[in-house]
């Protein structure tokens, strides 16, 4: 459905951030994209959704294809119309708009009559949003804002959602709830999902396939069951040592093994 082939992304004409990255997302899957801070996860999502341009970034090499069409030269509005919707890092709700106005903004590209029904559908997924429908979204809690950000994405009826760290800054219980809903959206709405996460354990528990990124490249890719069993992943991303004891990946030994992936 989506394939990224060996792309290079440069910011401000000089800062090379993605260095020949490739990945593939199949229809109906949840694919996790993991990596440490600054690895280039957000940049990868933005290069798919066309949001690099306003940040003075560009795909300078390689191709991105969605449903057989090249999209790496298209602008953001076109890409949304083709069915890809990015839920940006940090929720980014329209603070001065009410919940319902935010949802309507999400349906901007649609001109059909189903918008009202879809607002109801979003409320069915997130009953808390219904209670606050006329409240300014800027005053809502972080969890409610994340629900709104995902609900707003549903309003565009995308075939593929790019989720950038939906667990960021949320309490564990809420994270559980939101990930449950992400799975339901994938299963019941048939939305393919590319999920960027810091919380590797959680991401691998819902995804079908996973990619690990370091320094602008994919360093490992496999089915999640296999990734979970992989010793390196256990150690560096899940924080589990050989004997299942929690361990920091900042230790020198880990650092050396991380290095190996880079060469």
């Amino acid at each position, binding site marked *: 459905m989506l394939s990224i082939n060996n792309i290079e992304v440069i910011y401000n004409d000089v800062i090379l951030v993605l260095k020949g990255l490739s990945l593939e997302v199949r229809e109906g899957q949840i694919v996790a994209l993991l990596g440490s801070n600054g690895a280039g996860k957000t940049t990868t999502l933005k290069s798919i959704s066309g*949001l690099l341009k*306003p940040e003075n970034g560009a795909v300078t090499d390689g191709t991105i294809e969605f449903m057989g069409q090249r999209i790496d030269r298209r602008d953001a*509005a076109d890409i949304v119309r083709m069915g890809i919707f990015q839920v940006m890092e940090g929720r980014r709700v329209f603070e*001065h708009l009410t919940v319902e*106005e935010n949802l*309507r903004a999400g*349906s*901007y590209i649609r001109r059909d009559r189903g918008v009202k029904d879809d607002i109801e559908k979003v409320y069915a997924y997130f009953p808390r949003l219904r209670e606050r429908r006329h409240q300014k979204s800027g005053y809502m809690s972080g969890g409610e804002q994340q629900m709104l950000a995902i609900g707003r994405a549903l309003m565009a009826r995308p075939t593929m959602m790019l989720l950038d760290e939906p667990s960021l800054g949320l309490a564990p219980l809420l994270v559980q709830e939101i990930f449950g809903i992400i799975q339901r959206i994938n299963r019941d709405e048939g939305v393919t999902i590319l999920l960027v996460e810091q919380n590797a354990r959680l991401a691998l528990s819902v995804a079908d396939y996973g990619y690990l990124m370091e320094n602008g490249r994919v360093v490992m890719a496999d089915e999640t069951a296999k990734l979970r069993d992989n010793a390196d992943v256990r150690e560096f991303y899940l924080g589990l040592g050989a004997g299942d004891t929690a361990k920091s990946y900042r230790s020198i030994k880990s650092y050396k093994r991380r290095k190996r992936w880079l060469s």
Partner: protein
Amino acid sequence: MPNFLPLLITGLMNGAIYALVALGFVLIYKATDVINFAQGELLLVGVYVTFALVAETGFPLRPWPWPLAIAAALAVAVGLGVLIERLVLRPLIGEPIISVIMVTIGLSQLLRAIVAAFFGTSQRAFPPIFPSHVIELFGTRITADRLWALGIAGLLLLLLSLFFRFSTTGIAMRAAADDQQAALSMGISIKRVFAIAWSIAAVVATIGGLLVANNNGGINTSLGNIGLLVFPVVILGGLDSIPGAIIGGIIIGMIESFSAGYLNVKLGLEGLESVLPYVLLIIILMIRPYGLFGREIIERV
């Protein structure tokens, strides 16, 4: 209280006109972060184009009927607004706000000079748009053209409020004002939002200007000063608040009208009404620096 109703209607009418012009100003600021000092000159161009089509001798196919002349003037004003945004202001995105302000001030001088070059700076008679027979209303006499002006300005304000509150495009414009990149991520075209903001601003300025011209019965290039006169309105209501512009306009219109009607006579202070809005402006800025309805910076704790 003698003259209460006529003063009220004059206040409301002027207030609604101020609100229109202020609304254009607020829209441009909200959507594009530009403080547009050329708003009054956009109005000037619109009014003079109408004037040329309706009354200027030697103009082709003259005189045009009002609706056609006004439609043509609106088209010219919109075209001018969109061109200014596209050619002058968009390249300045990211430049310091003071540079942008200087450019709009320069633009206002330029437009004013162009209008003066075509039409001269002397007072010209502006033919009446509305009938001005006298109407009896609750025991007082009022000319019909004031009611027309009030009605049209009020209706336009109402339509625009509904547009921004309920229409998809209106919501998209407010969304883009909140967070441009997030708006972009849902397919909202920022270029389109900018163009619509400038277009609406040009339309409301022209209509506001026509109502003033009709009221005064004459025009000269100082009509462009309305762009500065609405400053107290905009600051009072909050630089980025649409309802603020409307309520601010009406408050200032009322203050002017009633201070001219009552205070001036009682205190013997001629021209008090044109100073009071600025006094109010200073007071408001001291108590509420963001204006009455200015956007609060939302900070959750």
